[in-house]
């Protein structure tokens, strides 16, 4: 970008909210000299800086790529609507935060897709960068557009915009992609050759090399590779041993959400909750050893000056060394005036023991529990069993330890749900409030967070329809009036956004055109409740000529070809079917660390399993 363009950017920054989002310059930012011969990546998080910069995956890839001398990796985020308006008015293309280069000057744009509501932002970013939206319209003169992240386990709705997807974990595969790109670029290869080359890398999915055919009723007939030397199914990529954790975190100059150091202590979960996408797609469980965790925290504190640390995992209580971790963290850091958070604790007294060890976890912030369902029957259906006695006893102990505020997460719209199950949620809130009041009097706060189920791909619930917004609204209304009377706070997802998420997460390739239409008509930042976009989406479906209810409200047959069936997460479909059937019978499956149910992970990845002393896997 020329000097005058930088001047122009600076001028528009005076007219936008929170301009610090767009200038970079954070402590620990890596600015490499922009020169020929390097493979230049821009890691794009298609949401605003405030949300994207907190993403740990982004920090991991930024580190992994920039460690290589021949690779340069910069960052870019979606501009908020005020900034976008200024950019369009002044014909300023989207730029990277480090060298302030236009996105179309990079070799590879790596988009993070952690959730579906930012799909339209991807299109907006390409458009702001003067890059054609559809993969087939781009030759080698444009950057290679790849996507990765939790949403890409069903990449189909975005398959025409992306050249390739990384399915699974990115830390190693990005380096392989980079290397292949640089070789093909030097040879002057065509885009077709590059894509064919990429499809041979483990965990890389090139959608244009697969063909989807449909039955007359709209269901998929088959998903087939278009040539014979590429795999029928794309097996996700994993790192058998979690790589060295980043510690030189960027320190944002403007406040962002979760403004703290995040340390991933464990990846994956063995609990097998049936609604949980993350629990299915992130297997096997791998954990970082306490002796590796402490130095990373030490390093991170020294290099960032942060005062808050989050120890992240899907189920912290299940780390085999969790007690030791909390003890050592306290020993090492108690005199540094820090606060720690340890989310995702199980509902049991042991969680309180952890709190005793980690005194930096203060009762100030409120205690969060996620029973997810309020009757034992329903908890069996979702495979998140919790003994009623244990639950109430844990709640009592939490209050007794000094916490006055408890937040509880529940889901509605679950399979086999009855009014009784919904009433039980309200009843839980009231009972817990009563326990709290018996200990602390009226200063007790109980907060219910209500989400409605979206049956996600690759979970045992993937065949289920979504409950209609009307029925969800009815349940929400019941809970709202009940909590109001009881003086309990309640928050919830609006049914509209749930519906949009169900289309985008469960859709097939025909969604590409719908997303394109919706974007053309102004859809962006679809997760932001205040922008009422659902009508735009309904219109887009109508224009393309498909019925959104097909994706939301239809019960799929167990033998139907699902749009994501060619993506192999390691967990077998047979296993999911069996688990689904058990669910309908109200039968649970225990934590699989004690008892392997042969989900398929060891069939797909068993060969990669490290020796015990080199890395922990949760599989027995």
């Amino acid at each position, binding site marked *: 970008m020329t000097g005058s363009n930088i001047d122009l950017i600076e*001028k*528009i*920054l*005076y*007219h936008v909210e*929170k*301009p*610090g989002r*767009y*200038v*970079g*310059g*954070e*402590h620990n930012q890596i600015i490499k000299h922009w020169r020929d011969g390097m493979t230049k990546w821009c890691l794009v998080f298609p949401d605003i800086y405030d949300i994207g910069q907190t993403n740990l995956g982004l920090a991991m890839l930024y580190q992994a790529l920039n460690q290589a001398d021949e690779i340069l990796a910069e960052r870019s985020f979606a501009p908020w609507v005020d900034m976008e308006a200024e950019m369009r008015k002044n014909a300023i293309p989207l730029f990277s935060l480090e060298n302030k280069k236009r996105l179309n000057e990079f070799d590879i744009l790596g988009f993070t897709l952690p959730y579906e509501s930012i799909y339209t932002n991807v299109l907006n970013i390409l458009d702001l960068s003067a890059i054609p939206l559809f993969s087939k319209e781009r030759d080698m003169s444009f950057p290679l557009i790849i996507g990765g992240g939790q949403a890409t386990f069903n990449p189909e709705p975005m398959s025409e915009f992306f050249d390739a997807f990384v399915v699974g974990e990115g830390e190693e595969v990005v380096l392989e992609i980079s290397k292949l790109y640089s070789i093909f670029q030097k040879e002057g290869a065509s885009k077709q050759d590059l894509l064919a080359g990429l499809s041979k890398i483990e965990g890389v999915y090139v959608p244009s090399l697969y063909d989807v055919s449909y039955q007359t009723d709209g269901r998929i007939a088959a998903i087939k590779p278009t040539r014979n030397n590429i795999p029928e199914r794309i097996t996700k990529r994993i790192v058998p041993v979690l790589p060295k954790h980043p510690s030189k975190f960027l*320190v944002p*100059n*403007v*406040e962002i959400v979760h403004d703290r150091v995040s340390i991933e202590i464990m990846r994956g979960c063995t609990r097998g909750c049936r609604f949980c996408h993350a629990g299915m797609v992130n297997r096997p469980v791998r954990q970082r050893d306490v002796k590796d965790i402490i130095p990373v925290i030490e390093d991170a*504190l*020294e*290099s*960032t*000056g*942060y*005062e808050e640390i989050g120890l992240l995992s899907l189920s912290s209580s299940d780390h085999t060394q969790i007690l030791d971790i909390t003890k050592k963290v306290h020993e090492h850091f108690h005199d540094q*005036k820090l606060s720690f958070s340890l989310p995702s604790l199980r509902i049991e007294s042991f969680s309180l023991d952890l709190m005793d060890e980690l005194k930096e976890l*203060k009762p*100030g912030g409120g205690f969060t529990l996620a029973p997810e369902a309020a009757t034992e029957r329903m908890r069996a259906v979702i495979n998140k069993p919790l003994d009623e006695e244990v639950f109430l006893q844990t709640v009592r102990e939490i209050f007794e330890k000094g916490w006055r505020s408890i937040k509880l997460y529940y889901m509605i719209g679950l399979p086999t749900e009855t009014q009784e199950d919904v009433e039980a949620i309200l009843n839980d809130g009231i009972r817990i409030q009563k326990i709290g009041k018996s200990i602390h009097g009226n200063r007790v706060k109980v907060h219910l967070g209500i989400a409605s189920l979206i049956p996600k791909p690759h979970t045992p619930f993937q065949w289920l329809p979504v409950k209609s917004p009307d029925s969800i609204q009815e349940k929400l209304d019941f809970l709202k009036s009940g909590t109001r009377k009881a003086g309990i706070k309640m928050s919830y997802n609006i049914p509209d956004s749930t519906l949009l998420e169900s289309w985008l997460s469960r859709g097939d390739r025909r969604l590409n055109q719908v997303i394109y239409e919706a974007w053309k008509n102004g859809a962006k930042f679809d997760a932001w409740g205040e922008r009422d976009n659902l009508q735009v989406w309904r219109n887009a479906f109508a224009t393309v000529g498909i019925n959104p209810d097909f994706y939301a409200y239809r019960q799929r047959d167990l033998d139907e070809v699902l749009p994501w069936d060619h993506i192999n997460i390691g967990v077998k479909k047979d296993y999911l079917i069996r688990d689904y059937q058990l669910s309908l019978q109200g039968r649970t499956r225990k934590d699989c660390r004690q008892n392997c149910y042969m989900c398929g992970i060891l069939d797909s990845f068993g060969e990669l399993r490290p020796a015990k002393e080199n890395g922990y896997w949760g599989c027995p």
Partner: protein
Amino acid sequence: MNDRPIRVRVKYAKKGNLRFIGHLDTQRMFERALRRSKLPLRYTQGFNKHVRINLASALPLGFTSDAELLDFWLNEELEASFISDRLTKSLPSEIEILDVKLVDNSLPSLQGSLLASDYEILLPDNELFEENFTRLLEQDRIEVTRRNKTIDIKPMILRYEFSDSESGFNLLKIRMSSSASANTRPDDLLELLGINPADCKINRTKLIFEE
């Protein structure tokens, strides 16, 4: 721990991209830089402990400065040059440490004793500016409305002079009140003259305190 806190006064410049970082964010940036510096910091008491730090004055978003001041406190007395080195190492490069000294604890707070600020404003080429500006200053009242409150800023314009800068732009040097009771900013004035502050370069050159 030494019971008597050591008060450190830092003069610094804020440049480049960091001019787009607002006051609260700047304060947080300093807190984290101070933590990185590993100096023996004094913290506030109470439940949520913070680095004890006190910035003299909020620098408006988009302004650069050669004259910002802040105080922070240590538990031990250290050489000013040592403190300065540590700070320079832990701060982003667009913050430049200009001076560090240890000052008496009995001095009033920076915010409480600030009276005025000097600014240098590089204006876009506009031959009429000087004339328009002089005419505006001849009025009895100069009213600006901020947060639904209209105030007369004429008494807050304490002195000014024009000169030509090297680059051929007009340069306005102006002193304006920045005290708690009378506070105005150059952009208030520029907007009255129909000038977009974004087209100017505004640099704070001095903070003036009660003697």
